[in-house]
Each structure stands twice: as C-alpha cells, then as structure tokens.
C-alpha cells in the first residue's frame, strides 16, 4: 500500500527538512540594535539601585546623605539602627508585610482553590470584584477606606494599615493560585478520595503540594506589594510610620535629604529580595 501512496506525510516532511538549508537563524544573529536597546533600558532601570548602594557607602557628617562623594565608609552599616524613628518604621514595615502575607495567603488560597475548582453561581461576580479591586487606582482605594474609618470613627494606626494591605494584596494571591489550579488534574484528587482520604486530607496531602508554587508566588507578591506600598498606606496610617512613609517624609522635609541609613536599609532589603528570588529559582529548577 505504502508503495502506491508514496512516502507518508511524516516521511515527506523528513525529506523536506533534510533538503532544506539549515533553519534560518541568521536573522537572530544579524540585528544588534535590539540588544543594545535592551541593555540600555536594563542599565537605565538599574541606575537608581547603583546610586543607592554606592551612596550607602559614602562618608559624610550630616544627618542627611551628602550629594558629594566623600570617600568609602562602612560606618552607616555600623550605625544602621542609630536613627530610632527610621528603625521603628522599618520594623513596622516588616511585621505588617509578614502579617499581610499570612492573612492574604490563607484567604486568597481558599478563594483561588474555590474559583479554580468549582463552577458555582456567583463566581462571575466574585471575579468581577477581584478585577475591580486590582484595577481601581490606589488613591481611590486609600481614600475610600479612609472614608469608612472616618465615618465609623475608627482610630487609624498599625491595625488599619494591616487591614488596607490585606485588602489590596488579596486579589493578587487569588489570581496566582487560581492560575495554578487550572493546571491541576482533577484525577489526582479523585484518586486520593478513592483511597479513602477525606476532603481535608486530600487538600493538605494532594492539592496543596501541587499548587504550592502558586501559593508561594502569591505570598511573595503580597509581601512585596505590602512592604513597598506608599499611597494607600498614607491614607490610613494615622501617626504610625512605615519605611516608605518615613523615606517620603524625609525627602519632603528640609530640601529633600534622607538619612544615610535609608540607602543602607534599601541595599539590605534589595540583597535579601534578590537572594530569595534566586533561591526560589534554583529550587524550582532542581525539582523539575
């Protein structure tokens, strides 16, 4: 039969591939404008980071970082916690970010699992709620929450900042978890149930380990959003300061100078974030 029909389709393709010149990779090598553009943009994006790291090592006397280069020093690293207000602000930022992450991950994972796994009446309106929450401008989220706190006479401070941070990071956790749920084979859960596992055992022993990358990514996102937020926090902080609020306040006062420790703390947070991200990337590569 095959002799009559000639080569099968696969064979024909194989033949074609053999005859054709090597795949056109030339175009990938030719252009040099794109790489230059790309690297210039990357360099530009990194320039404030370089300034931050370098000026954290700049010697000087004043209470604010000097605009001139006065020589290399590590003294701001040694005196990292000398500025009490700044230290408190940093502590607030870190604890709020941790608490936000925990609450948002628990609530967000439950929601993400429900939206990814079940079709139910009202799921569309929940999605719309999440969409509106992500799409609404930060000023409006902050101002609206402030209206509520003002009209309900709730004093603003640490607690209201935490409430606000969970409110704006929750939806991001839901979306990442739901995206991960989409890749989950329902047969896995069914198999667990057939083997006599209850819904809780199934969730903790089967579902959760599979969606863990999504949960971790959502948690990291919540932490990053929380520790970096300025606008929404500025509406709901009362007299409590977070790290971004402190830096902003310092940059607005007396001609815009921040204490040199700000650059050092920024550098440490930066290094920590990069290490966590790289560690995560290495871990996930090893697993696959």
């Amino acid at each position, binding site marked *: 039969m095959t002799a009559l029909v000639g080569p099968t389709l696969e064979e024909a393709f194989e033949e074609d591939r053999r005859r054709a010149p090597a795949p056109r990779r030339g175009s990938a090598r030719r252009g040099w404008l*794109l790489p230059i*553009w*790309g690297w210039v*943009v*990357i360099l530009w994006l*990194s320039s*404030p*980071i370089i*300034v*931050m790291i370098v*000026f954290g090592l700049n010697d000087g006397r004043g209470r604010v*970082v000097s*605009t001139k280069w006065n020589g290399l020093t590590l003294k701001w690293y040694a005196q990292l916690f000398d500025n009490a207000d700044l230290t408190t602000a940093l502590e607030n930022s870190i604890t709020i970010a941790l608490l936000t992450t925990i609450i948002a991950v*628990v*609530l967000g994972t439950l*929601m993400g699992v*429900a*939206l990814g796994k079940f079709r*139910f009446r009202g*799921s569309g309106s*929940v*999605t719309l709620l*999440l969409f509106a*929450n992500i*799409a*609404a*401008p*930060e*000023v409006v989220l902050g*101002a*609206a*929450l*402030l*209206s*509520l706190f*003002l*009209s309900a006479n709730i004093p603003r401070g640490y607690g209201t900042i935490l409430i*606000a941070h*969970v*409110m704006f990071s929750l939806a991001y956790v839901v*979306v990442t978890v739901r*995206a991960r749920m989409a890749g989950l084979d329902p047969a896995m859960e069914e198999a667990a149930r057939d083997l006599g596992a209850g*819904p809780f055992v199934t969730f903790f022993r089967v579902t959760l380990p599979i969606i863990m990358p999504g949960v971790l990514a959502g948690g990291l996102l919540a932490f*990053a959003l929380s520790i*970096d937020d*300025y*606008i929404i926090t*500025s*509406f709901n902080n009362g007299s409590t300061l977070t*790290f971004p609020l402190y*830096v*902003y306040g310092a*940059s607005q006062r007396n001609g*815009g100078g921040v204490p040199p420790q700000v650059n050092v703390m*920024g550098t440490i*947070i*930066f290094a920590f*974030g990069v290490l966590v*991200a790289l560690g995560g*990337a290495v871990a996930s590569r090893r697993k696959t």
Partner: protein
Amino acid sequence: MSALRIRRRLAPYALVLPGWLWLVIFFVVPTVSMLSVSTMTGNDLDGFKQTFHFSTYSDAWTQYHVQILRSLRYGLAATVICLVIAYPVAYWIAFRGGRYKSSLLFLLLLPFFVSFVIRTQSWQFMLSDHGMVIGLLRDLHLAGDHTQILQTSTAVVGGLVYNFLPFTVLPIYVALERVDPALLEAGSDLYANKATAFRKVVLPLSLPGVFAAVLLTFVPVASDYVNAQILGGSQTTMIGTVIQTEYFTNLNYPLAASLSFILMGVLLIGIFLYARLLGTDDVLEMAAR
C-alpha cells in the same frame, strides 16, 4: 447521600466567604461610603450631613480640572513613551532571549526589589541642581548654568516612565512569548519580508498584551502622585496630591470624595470598555504576573 451533595454544593461558598467578606467590608462598603460622603455638606467641626448636594461634583471639576486633565495628560504621555520603550525590549527578550529569557526578565524586574519611594528619591538625588545628571550635561555644554530638570514636567513624566516601565514590558512579553516562531517562518515562506511578517503576524498577535500593558500602566500612572511630589514642583501637581490635601489639610471630605469618584469614573469607563471588548480573565492573568 443528599447531605454530602449539599456539602459539596456549599463548599465553594464556604471557601470564598472569608476573603469575599474582607473585600466587601474593606473595599465595596468603603466605596459606597465614599459615594455617600461625596454628596454631604457641612464642616469638620459640626459634622457632615447627607444633603444630596450633587453640585460638589461640578465644583470639584471647576476648581481642579487643571490637575485632573494634567494627570490624564501625564498618564497618556508616560504610557505612550513606556510602550515605545517597552515593545522592542519585550520583543528582544521573547524572540532573541533564547535560554537567557528568565535571566533577562529578572534583570528587568530588579528595580522592584528596591522600594518605589527610594527609587524615586534616588532620581531626585541624581537630577538635583548639584546632582550628577546636570553636572554631566554641563560638562557636555548641553545645559546652561541655570538649567533645571527637577520641578519640570519632564522630570515627572520621566520618573513615571521609569517607575512603571516593567508593568508595560511584562504583558507585552507574555503575549509575544506565546507567538509561535513557526508562524513567522510560514510568513517568510509565503514571501513576506520581515516588516510585513511583523505587521501582519506578530503585531496583531501581541495586541492583547499591548492592551493589557496600556491598562496596567495608565491607571497607576494617572493616579500616582509620588513622582509629582518628589520630582515635580507647584506647576506639576497631579490629582492624587489634591485628593490627599483635601482630606488631610483642608478636611473637606465631600470634595475629596467627589474628586476620587471623578478620577475613578474617568478611569473605570476606559477599563470597562476594555473588559467588554476583550474579556476580564486575560487582564487578571496579566496583572498577576
């Protein structure tokens, strides 16, 4: 059996409920509460009463349309510049990145590991009158002794572009990454030159990414005021600053609330038109990346 079925029915609601309540209490209710505040009259000392005073909205517009329009103008300018800068970068990483794709993306996202306020503050430091950028421009005789960058709209739009550029690159990258290179080959097999292949194949396929990028850039940029405050001057005030001042300095809550709604109204009209046209799921997915 039926008890089990009921439990299965209720399961999704039980899972959604805690998070849903959080969003309703701290997002939906506040928004409605702000809507009601916006039509109240009164003052901080005697309290505010609901009088359905809708003319606050027109007052807000007459008083602050300059700042509202400026915010939209800066937002538009920054978004367009972001697109022009970001598209080639996203294209480069998606089609030429090879096995370094994730490393390049990581480098692009590096600024996110530094606080937004610190980054903006670093720019203030670099652009200041005695800073390194002006110094360099003077050495090159491109700037006179009195040239200023800070406090101009250039500095503000530049800062906005800088801060939000990664939000533009990512969705475009995601869309371009999904384009099958075989389609380009097919295009060239059909005698399309590179420009035609780009225009007819790559560009249309990347449009959803471009739309998402516009949305994810324009909304935060137009409502940002940190850049305007740190890098700008009195001539570059954006609407966010006005809302903040009305709340905290002038204690004029109705005016602040109505300004928030005008801003949200302008932005939401755009968003919902977008969502209607292209569906919300894509945007949510993009937003999560």
